[in-house]
């Protein structure tokens, strides 16, 4: 399966979806005016990956900022991952947040309470 790779910009995150390794990463800022357009290929990639997912998928999310229009799209990403887990494949979600960034920790907890996959909250120090 092809790797989905998108370089980050000041408004959109770096994306690395590696199907052969089962590693999914989103990192940086997600504050575009049109988030649906940005997230569409990510959601489509995950739909394709769901059909041939690895026994273990590792998800690393490290966002510095995201806007509310991205927040819905990020939930769509998590819902695709939830579907993979429901098909009895393992999914681990690591939610990274900067030291003392309680708002970002809380945002992770909000997602965790909506989807049925436990998050590992990882504070990035320094």
């Amino acid at each position: 399966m092809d790797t989905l790779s998108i370089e980050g910009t000041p408004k959109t995150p770096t994306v690395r979806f590696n199907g052969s390794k089962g590693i999914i990463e989103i990192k940086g800022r997600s504050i575009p005016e049109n988030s649906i357009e940005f997230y569409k290929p990510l959601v489509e990639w995950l739909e394709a990956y769901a059909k041939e997912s690895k026994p273990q998928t590792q998800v690393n999310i490290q966002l510095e900022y995201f806007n509310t229009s991205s927040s819905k799209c990020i939930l769509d990403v998590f819902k695709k991952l939830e579907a993979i887990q429901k098909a009895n494949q393992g999914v681990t979600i690591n939610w990274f947040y900067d030291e003392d960034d309680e708002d970002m920790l809380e945002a992770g907890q909000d997602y965790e309470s909506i989807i049925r996959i436990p998050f590992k909250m990882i504070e990035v120090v320094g």
Partner: protein
Amino acid sequence: MGFDVNQLYAEICGDDVFFAYAGNIVSEQINLILEEIEKKSVEVSTNIKVRKKIYNIMVESLQNLFHHLDDVPEGLSETLGKRYGMIVIKREGGDFRLTVGNFVSADKVKFLTEKIAKINSLSNDELKEMYKFILNYQKLSSKGGGGLGLIDIARKSDKKLEYRFYPYSDRYYFYRLDIFVSI
């Protein structure tokens, strides 16, 4: 003519302003404004939490302006620009006051008033639940906004939201929203 937007802008700016912008709100402008806010906030606060809060609130406020502001009333667009909005960040006592303003058509006043009153009536926990409910159950609008912007702003604000509608004409009001972040 009772309402003068330039006079209001000058009044809001007053002293101790660390960022102010009034003009067209278009995508490229938003990038520049956010860059500038990020740079300047380092000069006024050593607390990264405060800086992040201000940045987050401004990201959301600018998105709200971008998607929801109404074109300025006829006769003003030549001097102000068609997609006019204002943003002011200043120190005031123990807070940063973030003011956002734009023209809205009269038919939106009731909707916005009720929405902000509702948000202000909720506790932080209730706001969190409302946010999660909308996040999970409501579809994104064609504009990409999810109805979450104001709720997110209120969750990050350290005080209740303040707002005011200045009548401009029968059809237009100037909508002003004030958000507070503790220093």
